[in-house]
């Protein structure tokens, strides 16, 4: 396990460095005009543009910029934002938003996991009956209808008939978080329900289930002790990743409800050519992704001791 961990960490570091370098170079491939807003392009003289680029270090040769970048990375100095919030450190910019996205994301992930898995179990238990059809209809609806439409429905229904605030507010965090969390949970509940049902239905056809029935185990014992546990094995691998990635926020949901989270930050930073923010976010998301996969592997081993990651027979 230790050997595996060290190996994965080393691989991860190389991966992150590669990703950061590629993003760094790709961002530099964009014309420097992208550093300016349309309004600034309209007002600035060429001299002003050059002075602003010079101040941002963007007129240096690419090699020099890359060396500075590695050096800063080595010292965990992620620099300051130039456009998202001029002069603020990137850590500060991200830090403020991180908490908001994480809070909503974790609540949503918890709700989704519990409700989604429960829904999957119920659908399995009542396979091909009304409750199963309702669950399937919900899953199909959520996946078929564009998110913006379902968010709009939640917004209109939630604010008009239930009186929840439309916009997220730090002065009224609880009620104003309800609709964003509902929207965030819609799709993942459907996802968990779909896969839980699918894996459980698969497991129910296995021989060991027939044997368990013959041995006289109760339905609930079969469902929870055997079917659910085995059905969860392929699913748990993705749970850490999906929980960790919730801190990345949801672009659409956060825009829609004006949640001051991480969701729109990366696209905003790319659009505004805020290089330090883009690079830091990419590294951040890469770390989250890699950590998620790693924890997923570990969790899978914990749930199913038959799985090994270091032996010759290791699948991964």
């Amino acid at each position: 396990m230790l050997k595996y961990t060290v190996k994965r960490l080393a691989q991860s570091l190389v991966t992150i460095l590669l990703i950061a370098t590629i993003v760094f170079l790709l961002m530099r491939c964009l014309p420097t005009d992208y550093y300016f807003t349309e309004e600034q392009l309209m007002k600035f003289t060429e001299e002003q543009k050059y002075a602003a680029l010079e101040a941002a270090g963007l007129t240096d040769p690419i090699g020099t910029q890359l060396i500075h970048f590695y050096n800063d990375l080595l010292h965990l100095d992620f620099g300051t934002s130039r456009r998202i919030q001029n002069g603020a450190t990137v850590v500060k910019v991200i830090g403020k938003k991180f908490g908001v996205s994480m809070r909503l994301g974790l609540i949503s992930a918890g709700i989704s996991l519990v409700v989604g898995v429960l829904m999957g179990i119920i659908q399995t238990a009542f396979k091909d009956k009304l409750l199963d059809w309702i669950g399937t209809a919900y899953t199909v609806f959520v996946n078929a209808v564009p998110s913006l439409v379902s968010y709009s429905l939640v917004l209109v229904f939630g604010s008009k008939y239930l009186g929840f605030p439309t916009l997220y507010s730090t002065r009224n965090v609880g009620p104003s978080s309800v609709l964003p969390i509902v929207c965030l949970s819609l799709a993942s509940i459907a996802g968990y329900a779909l896969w839980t049902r699918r894996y459980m239905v698969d497991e129910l056809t296995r021989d060991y289930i027939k044997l368990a029935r013959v041995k006289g185990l109760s339905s609930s014992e079969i469902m929870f002790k055997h079917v659910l546990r085995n059905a969860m094995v392929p699913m748990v691998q993705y749970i850490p990743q999906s929980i960790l990635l919730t801190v990345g926020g949801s672009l659409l949901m956060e825009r829609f409800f004006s949640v001051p989270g991480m969701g729109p930050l990366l696209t905003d930073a790319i659009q505004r050519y805020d290089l330090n923010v883009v690079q830091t976010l990419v590294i951040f998301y890469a770390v989250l992704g890699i950590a998620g996969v790693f924890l997923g592997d570990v969790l899978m081993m914990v749930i199913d001791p038959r799985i090994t990651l270091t032996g010759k027979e290791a699948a991964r």
Partner: protein
Amino acid sequence: MNMNFESRSISRRSFLKASGVVGAASILAACGGSSSSTAASGAASGAPAASADAITDYVSFETANRELETWNFLYSQSASDLNVTTNMWDGLLSFDCYGKVAPAIAKSWEHNDDSTVWTFHLRDDVDWCDVNGEVKSHLTSKDFLVGLEWVLNAFKNEAFNTSMPSETVVGAADYYDLTKDKGDAAADMTYEDMLAAGVGVEAPDDYTLVFTCPSPCPYFDTVVAYNSFYPASEDLIKELGVEGFRACDYTTMWYNGPYLMEEFIQGNTKSFIPNPNYYAANECTRFEHHTVKMISDLSIGLQLYESGEVDNIDLTESNLTTITSDSNNAHNAYLCEKRPTKFSYQMHLNFQRKDENGNLDENWNKAVANYAFRQCFYKGLNLVNYYARTNKINPLKCENDFYTMPGVCYNTKGEEYTTLVAKEMGLDSEAYDGKTMKRLRANNGDISDLKKQAMEELSAIGVTFPVHCYHYIKSGDTNALDTATVLKQCFTDSFGDDFIVLDIGTYVSSLYKEVRNVQLHSILQNGWGADFGDPVNFLGQEVLGDDNAYYAQTTSWIAAVEADPKDYQKDLLERYQEFTDLVNEAKAIVTDTDARYAAFAKAEASMLNNALCIPCLYEVLWCLTHVNEYTKINAMYGPCNYKAVNWETRQGDGYTTEEYEAFAAAFDAASK
């Protein structure tokens, strides 16, 4: 000429429902008046008492793509920043609700006979305070020297906001070059170095500031209202350091404006509370809380207004359709038409178009150089349906027949500048009738003779028809596509597809980078907002022989034509030269404002009669609102329009359509 604008209090009549034109006029008079000699402080244009049902916690909105990026007023050049920071930082001068310059920190000002030396007398009761409202230092004329030095220092302000002082203050450009040459060492330079370098500004005492202009500048008071001339505290710069001051935020900056920032959550909320040390606190009304909520876009705006989460909302075309198509809709009686925004939209013609391979598009370039062809655009293009995309109810309120935005300046008789242009063009007798465009009335939009003439003349030099006119929109923007499709239909209806066809192209990210700079467009629509209050700020952008003429250099590309004209462009250049000469003649008139504006009006009429540019649109939107827009500062330039002082508001129901019509009528009557 001397002006003295001592503040004085004017009691405001309580203004509630069912007020008519007279009542509205009273309100508007109280918010500034049209006579500059009696104007009160722009920050406090009136000293009104808030009515009993005024809103104390006002919630407004801003769309997510207009989030603030920098708090430093001297550093920012973006309206999205200044619209926020104007509430926290005051300058020498402000504006009233008619857009006329009004006192702020400067209580009065005067200039010498040829407008080269301007003296400003400052208030002695202005303090800087921190985010907690604690007084940090007293504001004196030195702070304006510090502010100007910061702006002109290439190292400190990174060349932002330098152009206006460089052009209007003696030695400013040289000082900028000096700091640029010094590199990092310029960080240690102070206002004393600036004075020693001969920059034309001095502070003979703590409350007097004198600027010297390199040439007569009769509109300099409108220039100093711009944020390049705002004050900065030397103590704060010392405390934060150069980098720290440049990147100051609401927690570290010092305030001298009407509000303090209580809470800022990027992408979500900006919440203001009154600055307890505001110098004009007793001369204006402010909100106890003023909150700006960021919203994704206007599609959820109506829902927010209905749920009471915002106190005003702009309506989209679909909102208007929903409301007006149902006579029982509760909002029908509350639809309020706003004043035009401060941008005069033009359809800029490209006289040197290139195709996507970078080759000159001779067919278009020949056509657009032809006088009759251009006249067809000006006299024949019926844009009513196009205007309806902006203003579904009264499309023709969006009609723009001029190049300069109305309200930029007034002559000494109180006449608004574009009324002079209208007289020159014979449009002064044409009133809004809601049916036809004013400039199409003379011939009922019939351009058959002009079309025939253009086709004959152009066919003779090898132009093929239809002439393709390329217009670019952002790819994936369905709203822009719908608007462009309507415009295309306007072309078809007005010109006929045998003559001119509008081709809609797309760009990915930047109109300027992907289209304008590579000369792909045939026409480019753009709104110009003034930087200061003189017609030269508009007309100067189109003249020949001036490297700073923005549109001539980058949009109409006439400067490129001038450098290498083809035979077919000689007539075009002659007409441009006539316009340029008229502008230069007007610029030379510096002691007689009326004569100056009259001369500019003549130049503008020449430009429009020659169809060198096609006036296109004013943005006149509809809203549901609890605020009387006509009580807001409404300057056509400068950063003050979003300063939330003296806003007339009402709890309960929003303002009605009738009330807003009365406000508009009173405003028009008072501003003409």
